[in-house]
């Protein structure tokens, strides 16, 4: 692969977005877990819950700030590195981003200051409301960002305007209620909840292994495992729902994820294992599970899912159709704002839905109308994203997703029905599992966005055309700058996170004797002979 401006811009976007998403999932989930804990505190007035709230809020704060810091870049990077994209679809794509600021981020950021500084400045219920507003703001943020992202995967409610050379919104409601966006939103926030649950359980398990802060750790596991179990089930269900949507709207992405070169007879089988070969356009060492793919992709036993080769043939036809629209567009542009010939306008309107496919030829020639047959065939094969990275990142993500359901169910069961008695091997596993949800989330984004290639907006605008008119040197400079800068910040963040986890909560709070007597049975303890639930052994 030659490293020009397109590749560098993609690399920079991928890098800054994936860094950003190291912090976002924890913000999404931990904000809600902290709000739940504070609500329990307000309702029961028991100091242990205040302590838990403050402890997890401290870790939330360390993480939150880098989410905000890396988010600043995301808002401006479209204009900086993707100026043609910004011009071409800003009329639609800009709206959810601006609404995100107006409706969600403003609320989240305004109240987060009060959440940390306002403990003695307002009543307890008022402070809990503030914490909830931060959590709701964070989650609304995700909604609008995913509406924007969902539109890139499935561009609805917009059409091309030849006078302004860009896509313009025709229906805000279609953009808003885009089914892809809705499924993606629930899938993504649930993934954030799972991430935070795994994090809380892992850190608490680490305390239990060292017999530290037992009160705080067990209650935290109880909250996080219940929340995490519901979320893990939701991630997989909504992931399946996204899969169903993808198969309808982005058939090529689905076929690539499945490494399905030929259209299979319905109901299609699911490739559990394969080594896809891009050159030969076939798979080696396939292990198939019959019927499963057909059920996921079409919810039926009779509908067919098209394979890569058939989709390429369809795309070749779309390129030829798009060329007719391109030809008309050039004539309309010649008129420079004056009313063009009616026949030309009609020609454009009849074929404009495939205009984006004609732009795929820009990679080979400045004037797509002069493209040769070989170039058209080559461009139609360009619509296939690299298969094996998608095939494998998707499978690892799914396996991790099922792993989370199992882990959460296990901890929920031990917390609810076994008197919060957690065996040491399970606790060790929980500590080692902490990075897993991040891996799953990053692989999920990779599958969604790499699988969208070669488009920035599916079927509308190719990635290669979306970049700014910058020099490769400039982008290389900022790419290196971002990598270094972010890495330093990330190391500092990890250092502080570990420091505050090691330090533990501000002070341990014992329960009252009467409350202990009432709950002695449920709290029977087996982490060691001397470990009374109220005690916090010296380190």
């Amino acid at each position, binding site marked *: 692969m030659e490293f020009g401006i397109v590749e560098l811009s993609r690399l920079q976007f991928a890098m800054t977005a994936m860094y950003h998403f190291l912090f976002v999932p924890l913000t999404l989930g931990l904000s809600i877990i902290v709000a739940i804990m504070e609500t329990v505190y307000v309702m029961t007035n028991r100091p242990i819950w205040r302590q838990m709230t*403050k402890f997890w809020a401290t870790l939330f*704060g*360390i993480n939150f*700030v880098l989410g*905000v*810091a890396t988010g*600043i870049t995301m*808002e*401006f990077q479209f*204009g*900086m590195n993707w*100026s*043609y994209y*910004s*011009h071409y679809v*800003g*009329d639609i*794509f*800009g*709206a959810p*981003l*601006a*609404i995100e*600021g*107006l*409706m969600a*981020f*403003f*609320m989240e*950021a*305004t*109240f987060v*200051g*009060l959440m*940390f*500084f*306002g*403990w*003695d400045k307002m009543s307890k219920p008022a402070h809990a409301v503030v914490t909830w507003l931060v959590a709701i703001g964070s989650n609304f943020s995700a909604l609008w960002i995913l509406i924007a992202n969902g539109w890139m995967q499935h561009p609805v409610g917009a059409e091309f*305007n030849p006078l*302004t*050379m*860009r896509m*313009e*919104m*025709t229906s*805000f409601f279609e953009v808003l209620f885009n089914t892809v966006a809705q499924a993606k939103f629930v899938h993504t926030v649930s993934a954030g909840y799972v991430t935070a649950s795994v994090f809380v359980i892992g850190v608490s398990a680490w305390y239990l292994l060292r017999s530290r802060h037992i009160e705080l750790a067990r209650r935290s596991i109880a909250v996080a495992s219940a929340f995490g179990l519901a979320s893990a089930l939701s991630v997989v269900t909504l992931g399946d729902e996204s899969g169903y949507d993808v198969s309808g709207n982005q058939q090529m992405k689905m076929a690539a994820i499945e490494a399905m070169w030929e259209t299979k007879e319905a109901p299609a089988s699911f490739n559990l294992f394969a080594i896809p070969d891009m050159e030969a356009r076939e798979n080696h060492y396939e292990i198939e599970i019959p019927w499963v793919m057909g059920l996921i992709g079409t919810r039926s036993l009779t509908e067919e899912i098209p394979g890569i080769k058939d989709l390429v043939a369809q795309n070749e036809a779309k390129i030829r159709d798009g060329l007719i629209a391109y030809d008309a567009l050039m004539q309309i542009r010649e008129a420079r*704002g004056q009313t063009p010939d009616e026949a030309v306008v009609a020609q454009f309107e009849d074929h404009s839905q495939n205009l984006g496919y004609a732009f795929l030829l820009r990679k080979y020639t400045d004037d797509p109308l002069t493209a040769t047959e070989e170039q058209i065939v080559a461009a139609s094969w360009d619509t296939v994203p690299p298969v094996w990275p998608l095939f494998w990142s998707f499978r690892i993500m799914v396996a991790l997703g099922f792993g989370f359901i199992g882990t959460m169910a296990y901890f929920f069961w031990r917390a609810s029905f076994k008197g919060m008695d957690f065996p040491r091997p399970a606790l060790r596993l929980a500590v080692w599992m902490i990075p897993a949800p991040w891996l799953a989330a990053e692989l999920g984004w990779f599958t969604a966005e790499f699988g969208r290639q070669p488009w920035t907006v599916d079927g509308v605008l190719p990635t290669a055309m979306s970049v*700014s*008119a*910058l020099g490769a040197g*400039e982008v290389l*400079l*900022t790419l290196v*700058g971002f990598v270094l*800068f972010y890495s330093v*910040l990330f190391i*500092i963040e990890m250092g*502080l996170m570990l420091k*505050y986890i090691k330090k533990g909560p501000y002070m341990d709070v014992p329960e009252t004797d009467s409350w202990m007597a009432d709950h002695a049975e449920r709290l029977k303890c087996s982490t060691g002979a001397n470990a009374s639930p109220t005690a916090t052994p010296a380190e």
Partner: protein
Amino acid sequence: MILHELISLDVLRVIWWILLGVLLIGFAVTDGFDMGVGALIPFVGKTDMERRIAINTVGPVWEGNQVWFILGGGAIFAAWPPLYAMSFSGFYLAMFAVLAALILRPVGFKYRSKRDSATWRNAWDWALFVGGAVPALLFGVAVGNVILGAPFHLTPDQLPVYEGSAAAKFFGLLRPFALLAGVVSLSMLIAHGAAWLNLKTEGPVQQRARTIGAVAAVVAAAAYALAGVWLAMGIDGYTITSEVAANGPSNPLFSDVAKGGSWMAAYGARPWIIIAPVLGIGGMLMAALGLKSGKEISTILWSGISIVGVISSVGLTMFPFILPSNTNPNSSLTVWDASSSHQTLFVMLVVSVIFVPLILAYTSWVYKVLWGKVTEEEVTSPANSTY
């Protein structure tokens, strides 16, 4: 949906031009004092405690304030896509510097107090200084360049192309007039930050802020007046020479623009706009007097008014231009040809009408809860998670 036809496109464009100004003003007035305080930290605080007091005056609010900046970016994207595409890609390396400086700020606020080491804290003090001073300066430089016109053109595809090599693009921004505009914005925001510290602190921090702030306000007034004279005497304006199509499609290439004449012609055509520069200079001088005489609430109001005046004066003087091109004037972006579609402008207006008042309401409530001086006792109290 035909609801959007309730308001005609030209009216929506003017409304969004005003809202663009409101957002920039909201950003400069709120985040402006954060940046001013950042730039002042090394000078108003000699001890760690004094610096912590200064930092904690903005600690609970900077995050919300900064959203004005993010929202500004989002709103330009949604309402003025060609401007978003052109300006951020054209001022590429300058934008990178601003982003890097702005990223330092949240991290500095949050992480400074997390370790009890003098080296650690000193390093973050300088990060906060850079995070305040650099954007404050560069925003002014950017505005200066917008007034002068930037060297860009649009291709027939509407791809914005900023001319010159990477180095020429960046250092080309540092034209004398643009640097003067940078001095205006930096000194204006330092004065504003000082007015904030004057309101929120007492003792030595407050005293130093008053002294530095009064000087900064006078410098800002002088630099702003000088920029006005320069603009009248030696800088070309721009005019649309073809027929103005206020309801036409957003395609800058459809209109003809000529460079020449003076921006100051706007004051002949719309004499009432003189109120903006008068408020700008008057506000600065009143803020300087207030800082000298130790008035608290009125001083921050005056410095806020000066920011409103200065930013409005730029917009009103240039109207209908938003970003002129000095190498290819026909590519210039104006209110009439660089907006979003009719439908998008309308939808975004509805959303803004609902949420902007809500934002102002809860922001005011938060400021009310946090009202009062930041003291040593409050900073060291274990009940609070102060910085």
